[in-house]
C-alpha cells in the first residue's frame, strides 16, 4: 500500500515512537506527588516546553487536549463566549460546528479568505472571534493569518487559528502570527493519535470545556495522556518543514494534469505536501476506490464520521461546484519517496484513461 493520505493522519515518526514507548514504561499519574508521579510530571512538563518553544508560546500557555477537534472546540467555546463568531468558509467541521451560528467569511476560487470582506464584517457589529485556519486540509491553501490578525487587533476581535494541518509542515508561530489562540494535533505532524494542544496568547483566560480535577491549570480536566503527549512533543521537534515534499508533489501534479486532471486551488500558496486533483466527469468515490484497488491510499476529502464520500464542501465554497464531486486529495506523508510518486502517477494515468473513456463517461 502506497500511503498518500497524510492529511488524514501522518505515519508515526521514529522519534515519536521512541518517546511513546519510553513514556509507556512510566507508571505514575502526572498529578501524583510521589516519585513515580513526579517522573511522569517531568515528562509532561518537558513535552509542554518543547511544544511551546516549537510554536511560539510560553509553556504556561499550552493546554494539552485529546486532539485537534477538542482543541478547536475548547478554544472557540471558551474564547467565543459573548462574541459573535466569524469563520472562514472552508474551515474544518471541528471549527464550523464549534459555534452555534458562525458567520462565514467567503474565500476566492483558490480558497483564500477575502480580507476586505473580513474588515467590513469586523467594522460592523459587536466584538468578534474570528476563526481562520493556517492551511486547508483538502487543498492545502495557506491563509493570510498574520494579515487577518492585524485586522482583528485593529477591531478588538480575537483570532483563533486552526493550525492542525500547517504545524510541522510550514513555519507556524503563534507569537509571530499575532493570533490569540491556535489548535494543534499530534497525529497530523507525525505524532500519535490521542493528543493535541491549544496555544494561548499570554494572559488570555480560557474557561474549561472538560472540567474537573484541576489539570492543565484548570483549563482541561482529566489525567493527561502521557505517552501520546510525549510522542506529540517528539514529533513536533522532529517535524521541520515539509518543503522538500513540494518537488515530489509538483511532479505528481504535472503527471496527473497531463492525464487530464485539474489542480484545485493551484494558484494559492499551499502546503508543500498537498494537492487536490479534479477529474471532470468522474465521481470522486469512483476514483478513490479505483486507486485503493491499485494499492494507493488517497481520499476524497476529510476523513470523518460517515465514511461516505460526499461532495466537497470546501470546493463548493471556493465557487467551483462543477469540481466539488470529482476531486480527490493527495497528501504526501513526511516519508514519501520518489518511487511512491511514480507508482501513484502511473496508477492515476491508467485510472484516468479508463474512467474517462467516452463509453464509460456516457454510461
Amino acid at each position: 500500500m502506497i500511503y498518500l493520505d497524510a492529511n488524514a493522519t501522518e505515519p508515526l515518526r521514529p522519534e515519536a515512537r521512541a518517546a511513546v514507548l519510553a513514556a509507556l514504561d512510566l507508571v505514575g499519574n502526572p498529578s501524583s506527588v510521589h516519585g513515580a508521579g513526579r517522573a511522569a510530571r517531568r515528562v509532561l512538563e518537558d513535552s509542554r516546553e518543547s511544544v511551546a518553544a516549537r510554536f511560539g508560546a510560553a509553556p504556561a500557555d499550552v493546554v494539552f487536549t485529546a486532539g485537534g477537534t477538542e482543541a478547536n472546540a475548547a478554544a472557540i467555546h471558551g474564547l467565543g463566549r459573548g462574541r459573535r463568531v466569524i469563520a472562514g468558509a472552508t474551515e474544518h467541521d471541528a471549527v464550523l460546528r464549534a459555534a452555534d451560528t458562525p458567520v462565514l467569511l467567503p474565500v476566492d476560487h483558490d480558497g483564500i479568505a477575502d480580507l476586505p470582506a473580513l474588515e467590513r464584517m469586523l467594522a460592523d457589529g459587536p466584538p468578534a472571534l474570528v476563526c481562520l485556519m493556517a492551511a486547508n486540509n483538502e487543498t492545502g491553501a495557506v491563509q493570510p493569518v498574520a494579515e487577518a490578525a492585524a485586522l482583528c487587533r485593529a477591531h478588538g476581535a480575537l483570532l483563533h487559528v486552526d493550525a492542525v494541518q500547517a504545524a510541522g509542515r510550514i513555519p507556524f508561530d503563534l507569537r509571530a502570527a499575532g493570533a490569540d489562540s491556535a489548535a494543534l494535533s499530534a497525529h497530523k505532524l507525525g505524532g500519535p493519535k490521542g493528543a493535541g494542544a491549544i496555544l494561548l496568547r499570554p494572559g488570555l483566560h480560557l474557561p474549561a470545556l472538560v472540567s474537573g480535577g484541576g489539570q492543565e491549570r484548570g483549563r482541561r480536566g482529566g489525567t493527561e495522556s502521557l505517552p501520546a503527549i510525549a510522542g506529540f512533543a517528539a514529533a513536533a521537534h522532529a517535524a521541520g518543514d515539509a518543503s522538500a515534499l513540494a518537488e515530489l508533489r509538483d511532479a505528481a501534479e504535472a503527471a496527473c494534469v497531463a492525464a487530464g486532471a485539474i489542480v484545485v486551488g493551484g494558484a494559492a500558496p499551499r502546503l508543500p505536501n498537498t494537492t487536490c486533483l479534479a477529474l471532470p466527469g468522474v465521481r470522486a468515490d469512483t476514483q478513490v476506490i479505483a486507486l485503493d484497488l491499485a494499492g494507493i491510499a488517497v481520499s476524497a476529502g476529510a476523513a470523518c464520521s460517515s465514511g461516505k464520500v460526499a461532495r466537497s464542501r470546501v470546493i463548493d465554497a471556493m465557487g467551483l461546484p462543477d469540481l466539488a464531486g470529482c476531486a480527490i486529495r493527495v497528501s504526501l506523508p513526511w516519508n514519501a519517496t520518489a518511487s511512491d510518486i511514480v507508482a501513484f502517477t502511473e496508477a492515476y494515468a491508467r485510472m484516468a484513461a479508463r474512467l474517462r473513456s467516452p463509453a464509460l463517461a456516457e454510461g
Partner: protein
Amino acid sequence: MPPRPNRPVYLDNQATTPLDPRVWQAMVPFFTEHFGNPHSAEHAMGRFAEEAVETARGHVAALIGAEPREIILTSGATEANNLAIKGAARFAAARGSARRRVVTVATEHKCVLESVADLAAEGFEPVVLPVRTDGLLDLDTVAAALDDRTLLISVMAVNNEIGVTQDLAAIGRMARAKGVLFHSDAAQGAGKIPLDVAETGVDLLSISGHKLYGPKGIGALYVRRRPRARIAPLFSGGGQERGLRSGTLAPPLVVGFGEACRIAAAEMLLDAGRIADQRDRFLDRLARDVPGIVINANRTRRIPGNLNLTFPAARAADLMQALPELCVSTGSACSSAEVEPSYVLRAIGVPDEAAARTLRVGLGRFTSPADVDYAAAALAAAHGALAAKAA
C-alpha cells in the same frame, strides 16, 4: 527500617495502574505499523484501523454487559463524566423538559462535582447529597432527592479515596421509577467489581482505561439504547462516535483499552481474590506494629485494592517524605498537590487533624507479597521513628 527495594513499590493503584504487558503488546503495533486513520473508510489502511477499533469496542461493551453501539469512546473518564452530566442536562433542556435538578454525592470525583456545579450557570439546580460516616449513601436520602423535578442522579460505583461501593442496583431502580436518568462514574469500579448495565439499571456509565491496566488518554461513556438515554455532545466536528464525540479516535489507545477490558472481564475475580490476600497480609502486619491505626469507611462494602488508613501519631506527608521508595498518596491524585484536607474524608466525618494523618494505599493486579511486606514494615518503622521524635 527494612532494606530498600530495588525499584519503587507502587501502591497508588487508584491514581493510575501500571500498563498490563499484554495490553502493551496489543497496542504497540498500532503505534508503529498500523497507523491508518480509522475514519478513512476509503482505503485499506483506514479500514484495518476501523476493524481494530470495533473489536476493541466490543470488549469494552462486554465488560459491562452492553452492546458495542452503546459505547462512546472518549479521552478518559473525566471527559465521559462531563459528557454524561452536561450532555444529559443540555439535551433535556433543549427538548423543553421541566426537570432542572441534577443530583450527586459529596464524595464524588472532582470532575463530577464540577460538571454538576457548572450546570448551575445554565439554570439547573445542583443537589449534593451527604453520605454516612461509612461512606455509603443512605437510600432514604436518595429517595427524597428523586421526584418529578429531578433530571439526573450521578453516583459513583467505587470511591477513589475510600474504596467503598455504592448500591447502584437499588439507586437504579429508584431512579427508573421516578423517570430520572442515572449516571455512574465507574472509573474505579469497572474491571474491579462486576458491573452490569442491566443489573445496575444505569443509563450512563463512565469508564477509564488507565484505571484498569490500560493506557492513559482513553475512556468510554456507556449510553443506554433501550430505553434510550439522550445526551447532547460536549463538542462537535467530524461527527465521529454517532455525533456524540467528534475527533479522530486513537487506535493504539482504543485497542489497548479494549484489551484491558477483555483481560479484566476474564480475570477480575482472580485479581480480587489475590489482591484481598495481599491486603490482609499488609493490614495484619501493619496493625500489629502500629496499634491504633484506623481503617476509614465501610469495612465490607469495598473493593479489596483500597485502604484508607489514619495513623495514630505521624502526619501522612511526613510518612511519604520518609519513604521515597514507597508510592502511596494522601488522596486523589488530582488534588494531591493541594494542602487542603480531603473533602471526601470531611464528608465522612474525619476531622481535619486526623485527615492529615491519613494515607491512601492502593493495591493492584501487580502488587506482590514482597511489595506489601516492604510497605508494612517501612510504614511501621517510619511511623515509629516519627512518633518517637514528636514525643
